[in-house]
């Protein structure tokens, strides 16, 4: 494998890691606040449909993005109302939302466009097109780093850079702000937060709204940057891989970035069986590569890479008086 092939795979890995990263950070906010969210997949899917449909109708990728975020926010609010306000089971609410998204997206897209549950292909302004960073072409002359900059770092849609910026932002918000401290506390010991006079309900709703926004970005990226339009079940389990990445990263933002990049790398590698064959000298079945992220997560959960301890109050609705 030469350097160019490696760069090509890394380039694909970054594109594939982006929706995972948005979804993973989305899950981080919600789970850190003590609300398990298995419905990341559904939120991404509804966001992808809204973004694809609105971008196709309006011809503007930015309006599509707003619609995507809006769609995901509605789902996040439903999850909040059922699991925070009415103290329902968080897992059941999440699973229900996944099913709802799976059916609703196809139904609405079919009703709007009559193309078998797809949204029409979009192009030009309706899509987030790759942007070339400054000096990308000039930098190619620099050995090693130059091509890396031009191929892997430059030439992505703006949402990709936004995803990596949100990692830094999340780290800062989580560890350097009052909100972050309270968020971490409410996921570990909501009673203590409540005693300090801070509303647990409000904190958790805020966290869920951030989750909705990030899932909206993930879905919009899928429909208007990675692909040109929404297709049936287009998120293809990425919401679950993001949850796996979240566990792998032990609910920490920087580690989440590396986990998503790793999983994105495996997905990119699965597309190049020729390269894998060259690396390990035996023919590796593609389904095995597809399964690698899940297998890695099982290894982590089995304690091979240290213990992954979820936020202590996760999954438990908070009841003020017992």
């Amino acid at each position, binding site marked *: 494998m030469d350097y160019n092939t490696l760069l*090509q795979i890394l380039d*694909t890995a970054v*594109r594939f890691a982006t929706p995972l990263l948005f979804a993973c950070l989305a899950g981080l906010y919600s789970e850190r606040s003590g609300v398990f969210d298995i419905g990341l997949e559904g939120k991404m899917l509804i966001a992808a449909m809204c973004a694809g449909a609105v971008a196709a109708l309006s011809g503007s990728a930015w309006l599509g993005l707003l619609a995507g975020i809006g769609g995901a926010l509605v789902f996040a609010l439903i999850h909040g109302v059922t699991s925070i306000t009415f103290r329902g089971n968080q897992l059941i609410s999440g699973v229900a939302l996944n099913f709802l998204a799976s059916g609703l997206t196809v139904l609405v897209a079919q009703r709007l466009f009559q193309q*078998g549950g*797809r949204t029409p292909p979009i192009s030009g302004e309706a899509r987030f097109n790759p942007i070339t960073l400054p000096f990308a072409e000039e930098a190619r002359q620099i050995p090693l780093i130059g091509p890396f900059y031009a191929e892997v770092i430059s030439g992505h849609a703006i949402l990709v850079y936004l995803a990596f910026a949100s990692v830094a932002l999340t780290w800062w918000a989580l560890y350097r702000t009052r909100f972050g401290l309270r968020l971490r506390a409410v996921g570990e010991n909501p009673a203590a937060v409540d005693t300090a006079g801070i509303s647990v309900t409000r904190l958790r709703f805020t966290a869920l709204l951030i989750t909705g926004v990030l899932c909206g970005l993930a879905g919009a990226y899928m429909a208007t940057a990675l*692909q040109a339009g929404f297709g*049936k079940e287009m998120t293809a389990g990425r919401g679950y891989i993001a949850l796996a990445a979240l566990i792998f990263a032990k609910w920490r933002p920087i580690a989440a970035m590396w986990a998503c990049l790793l999983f994105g790398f495996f997905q990119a590698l699965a*597309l190049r069986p020729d390269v894998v064959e060259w690396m390990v000298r035996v023919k590796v079945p593609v389904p095995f590569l597809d399964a690698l992220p899940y297998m890695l997560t099982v290894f982590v959960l089995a304690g091979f890479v240290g213990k992954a301890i979820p936020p202590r109050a996760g999954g438990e609705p908070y009841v003020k008086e017992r």
Partner: protein
Amino acid sequence: MTLMKSLAGASAALALMAGAALAEPAVIYDLGGKFDKSFNEAAFNGAEKWAKETGGTYKELEMSDEAQREQALRRLAEAGSNPIVTTGFAMSDPIAKVAPDFPNTKFVTIDGWVDPATNPNVLSIGFSEHEGSYLVGMMAAMASKTGTVGFIGGMDIPLIRNFACGYAQGAKAVNPDIKFVSTMTGTTPAAWNDPVKGAELAKGEKAQGADVIYAAAGGTGIGVLQAAADEGLLSIGVDSNQNHLHPGSVLTSMMKRVDVAVYNSFKAGDALDTTPQTLGLKEEGVGYALDDNNASLVTPEMKAAVDEAAAKIISGDIKVHDYRTDDTCPVYQF
């Protein structure tokens, strides 16, 4: 008088019912979906053409998972649909199971194979995909500037390898030194409907030097054609005429006349002849698409060369190897 009226009404109703039961054909689309802009959509177009011409109605079902196949066949057969036309090789086994229970219903499996000796009410329609692919392979080789042509298949099955093999043979006939890269999307039926993966595979083949990419992958092909348009490559569509999807980027489309097969089956109705058919260039079952959208891409030399080769294939002067006869390809090792 009233009695007469009601009697007449009853007999008219009976006649109507009998007519409906006799004449309503059905079509079952495979997993790529009715609107895959390719294989299944061709079947839909054929059915629509029949409906417009005859004013008749037909039933249709879209498969969304493997388990539904047999049930769908039984339900349509019990409802009196005849003939029942199915698309995709995966319908063959369920048809072989269901057909003996409905000896008066005619079944059609497009791209599949059911032995007519044991199931006299099943018509198998195959296509000589290698012949059509050979022609578009020639065009790809003539249009390529890098000397590398790419192929992206859907599910890795002999049928799709036959597309790849015919394509490679055509490309090598024009330029024996041409490099040929081939990728399959997957090994499960999900490979027919994964445009995200299709787009990334196309980018991967671009990195390997390919500047013309032929997609024989159902709904996955939409992603391939999209990526080719994004990256400034040429692409080749499949089954339906896909030239209009990205004018100026789709070099041509390898037409597989599934629409004609469906139309003819519907038209024959109950009198359908079940002698297995293979539709090639001679029968106009396959070919390449030329219209306003790709007129600027296809040079007169290309058209002349391809038309000459087509005539030679029909006359037997050029033999295009069919991968399915011996599971090998003379010019490419899968």
